[in-house]
């Protein structure tokens, strides 16, 4: 079987990280989101992934230019300028012949076990088209599903409002569809919602219930959740034989990759991830759910807690980075503090695309875009976003929500 992997979305709400990469290229514990997806698709029996790319296509193309470690065959399709989802799917039409079925995947979701094999098993039962469904705390962003007792989907409400649909199962962005679905899409002029509606009216769409964890990578703080999901699977510490360790305390499942160095006096509390070639200076405290990207450098006496550092990050000495996401090649000066809570301990609010979004989380730090430079002795308020490449002088306090 072949797949269509939709990886062309703009992911605007993921800013500042989506300004330089598409969501499927967000790093999570040393791999990219797309790597997890392709690996699981391959394990579920899919041999060829038609990747529909658009926004920052070059980033995905260069990542997959030498194929994929899973052995998945890759075919890249450009979706051209931003289009509706349905139109992006239609770009792959010529890759399929009549009677064929394919797996359709929205590539900015993450699961820790194989959602595709479950959907394909459901497909195998009746040979009817299948939509994978799951529960999520925020149903208003997805399609709410109505289900009959034989797992037939009877109705879908796209982006439900207050009245109905908020307590329903939602579409989880994984489908098994027949080639004739392109016909439905063409008829609906690329409107995915309408095409699914017509499919339900004319034939049968069955549900495959997904009960394990599922994350839609929509907001920058979802990167922290993604790291947590992956790390929660770890039971043991794994330290590559090449790692230089001296007088370090390691507790719990800590993963330290090839060529990393950890200096004396450091404490690493797992689960935590130290990428290849990373350098952890003397007396650094790494607390649970920290992910240090490849070749990052953490200065003396710094403290990292529940944060994601993309590759090539410098954290100057005596800094505290907590509940934050730090983009690729960011340089953080010495003594920089992220503030990770509001003064009254109310959930932190973050500005997303002009709107204030309540994260529902009591602890949120800063979100720093790629290649930003933060001077020494800065304080970054909770929920602050810093755009890629921005340079912040020494001794500043950043309050505003960019």
């Amino acid at each position, binding site marked *: 079987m072949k797949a269509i992997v939709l990886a062309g979305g703009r992911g605007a709400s993921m800013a500042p990280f989506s300004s330089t990469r598409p969501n499927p290229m967000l790093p999570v514990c040393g791999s990219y989101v797309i790597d997890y997806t392709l690996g699981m698709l391959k394990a579920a029996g899919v041999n060829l992934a038609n990747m529909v790319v658009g926004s920052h296509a070059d980033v995905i193309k260069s990542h997959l230019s030498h194929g994929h470690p899973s052995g998945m065959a890759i075919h890249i399709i450009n979706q051209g300028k931003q289009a509706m989802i349905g139109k992006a799917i239609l770009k792959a039409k010529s890759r399929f012949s009549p009677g064929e079925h394919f797996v359709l995947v929205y590539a900015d979701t993450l699961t820790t076990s194989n959602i595709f094999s479950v959907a394909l098993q459901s497909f195998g039962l009746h040979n009817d088209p299948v939509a994978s469904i799951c*529960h999520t705390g925020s149903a208003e962003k997805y399609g709410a599903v109505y289900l009959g007792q034989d797992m037939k989907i009877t109705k879908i409400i796209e982006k439900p409002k207050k009245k109905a649909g908020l*307590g329903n199962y939602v579409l989880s962005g994984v489908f098994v569809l027949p080639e004739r679905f392109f016909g439905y899409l063409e008829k609906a002029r690329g409107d995915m919602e309408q095409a699914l509606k017509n499919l339900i009216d004319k034939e049968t769409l069955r549900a495959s219930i997904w009960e394990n964890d599922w994350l839609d990578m929509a907001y920058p703080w979802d990167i922290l959740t993604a790291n947590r999901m992956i790390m929660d699977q770890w039971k043991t510490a794994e330290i590559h034989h090449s790692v230089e360790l001296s007088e370090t305390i390691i507790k719990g499942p800590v993963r330290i990759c090839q060529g990393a160095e950890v200096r004396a006096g450091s404490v690493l509390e797992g689960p935590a991830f130290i990428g290849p070639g990373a350098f952890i200076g003397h007396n650094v405290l790494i607390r649970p759910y920290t992910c240090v990207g490849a070749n990052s450098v953490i200065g003396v006496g710094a403290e990292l807690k529940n944060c994601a550092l993309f590759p090539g990050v410098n954290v100057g000495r005596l800094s505290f980075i907590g509940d934050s996401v730090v983009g690729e090649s960011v340089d953080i000066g010495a003594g920089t503090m992220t503030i990770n809570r509001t003064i009254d301990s109310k959930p932190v609010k973050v500005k997303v695309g002009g709107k204030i979004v309540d994260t529902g989380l009591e602890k949120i730090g800063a979100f720093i875009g790629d290649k930003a430079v933060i001077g020494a002795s800065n304080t970054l308020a909770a929920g602050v976003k810093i755009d890629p490449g921005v340079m912040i002088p020494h001794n500043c306090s950043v309050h505003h929500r960019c």
Partner: protein
Amino acid sequence: MCGIAGIVALEDISARLVQSIRNLEYRGYDSCGIAMLNGSGKIKISKNIGSVEEVCEKENFGRLKGSVGIAHTRWATHGGVTKSNAHPHMSCDNGFSIAHNGIISNHEKLRTRLKNAGHRFRSTTDTEVIVHLVEDWHRKVKSVEKAFVAAMRELDGTYAVILVTGHEPDRIYCARNESPLLIGLGDYVNYIGSDLNAFIDHTKNAVFMEDKEYAIVTHDSCILKRISDGETMSRQVQELMWDSEMAQKGGFPHYMLKEIYEQPQVVHNALDIDPELVEGFARMALEKKTLHITGVGTTFYVSQIGQYYFSRYAGVTPMVISSDEFRFLAQVDKDTAIIAVSQSGETYDTLNALRYGKSHHATTGAIVNVMGSSMARMVDQMILQGSGPEICVISTKAALSQMIILARIAMAAGVMNGRITAKQARGYEAQLRELPAAIENVLNEKSGFIHTIAQQQSHIKHWLFLGRGRYYPVARESALKMKEVSYVHAEGMPSGFLKHGTIALIDENLNSVVFAPPEEEKELYKLTLSSAEEIRARDGYVLGLTFKQKKKEKLPFTEQIVLPKTPPFTAPFLQMVVAQLLSYFTATTLKRNIDRPRSLAKSVTVA
């Protein structure tokens, strides 16, 4: 639901055929049988009541040798569980044999016609008309295919049918309409089954039949045609990507969820039970001086709910004793009626209670889900729930069905003794008829909220489930569900009981669920809310299961699941469905063994 299987090969298939229906047994298991064509083109049938294992031993299936055969495992819908009603069925001249899954709705009309034409019927099933119909047409048209198609065109209803015949001993004919059927393709052997479990041990290549199609299957060919005009259909061979467990669960992740989702249908089935049977129980309940309702575990709480419905709608308060305690407490004589409730009909304690009752000359009745069970055979009157096989060890759909049936009996008794009018009873029945749609709505529109709450509260180790009146037994049953499936401690009690001791336990480590009645049950409503306030005043977490109010007022709950406006008669049932989901999602969050919780067995047949 039944399971059917067929194999066409060149060598002996007897062992494989028996294995096929063994693999389909989850679809039904009250009787089974096989029909085999022997080398000389004669059909031999072997069938009986019991599980595949039992019948295989009793009838020695292995002695029937052949290379073309069909088999069936049954869950009775039409006709009792008897040897003659077991499938496959034979035509008068023994030239055709058929097995069937589904319901033929015009079977009575056809039966009358065929009887008039001289056909002798050996069973009371709807299936047998099909085989006589084919035989009848064959006499006229002299072609098996034409006769088979002509017969299919005459059938109304749902069917998956397979047929073997001595006239063409190298093939199997099959057809489907709204009942599942698929064909598995092997090397010089082809298979037919209700689902892929029938042949998955042998091949993964399958052809899916569609409604109103028939197929002619030989050891090396399979031709699909449309019933209406005989046009040949082309169909791609699919490689099955499957999981046998998953197939049995119909695609649901667990039997428990599947069975929860089957409840709308199960309520329909409970309401379709013959009113005469229900009235028979009501009469028995009223005629005797003392009425007992008994069960154990879930069925004890089912009995308790029955007690409340009897009291409120029939003005009679039956004794309800847990069946394991029955002998030590119940006073039984010939002026006593006992209604026993048991899904399997094999529950040791309940059987014992009935035996005790019978030895003291009581009149007995049972509500059971498994036809032909010990209990069904032993009582004076029996109501078969018709809930379909319940595979999850934890009872959901069977319990709801039993509650509905007891409510119906209570209503019938109320009409008989003048406690309620026939018009009122019709009104309540109409409300029950609306319950399936209400359950469907709750399953669809509330499951997400319930899931979120279950996840957020999954760290809690102790729960109280509180209700008053008819909501009290539902609270107890719901607490039992929580214990069984999630291994979390839960206690169900009357909410009025709380302040007489248990309230001392309230703190941030103990959560409560309050089953609040609809607001038109004024007194109950007020009293129930006051218990919630008592808990809140002590900083306890309270989840309220409430119904939509006319005027929105602030209620004393930490969180609420607000159900649509529901009449009081059916309100407790709807809340029970919510509580089932709460237990289920708590258990999935805690990664419990949902369908086979530790230490539990489906039917407790020991002391």
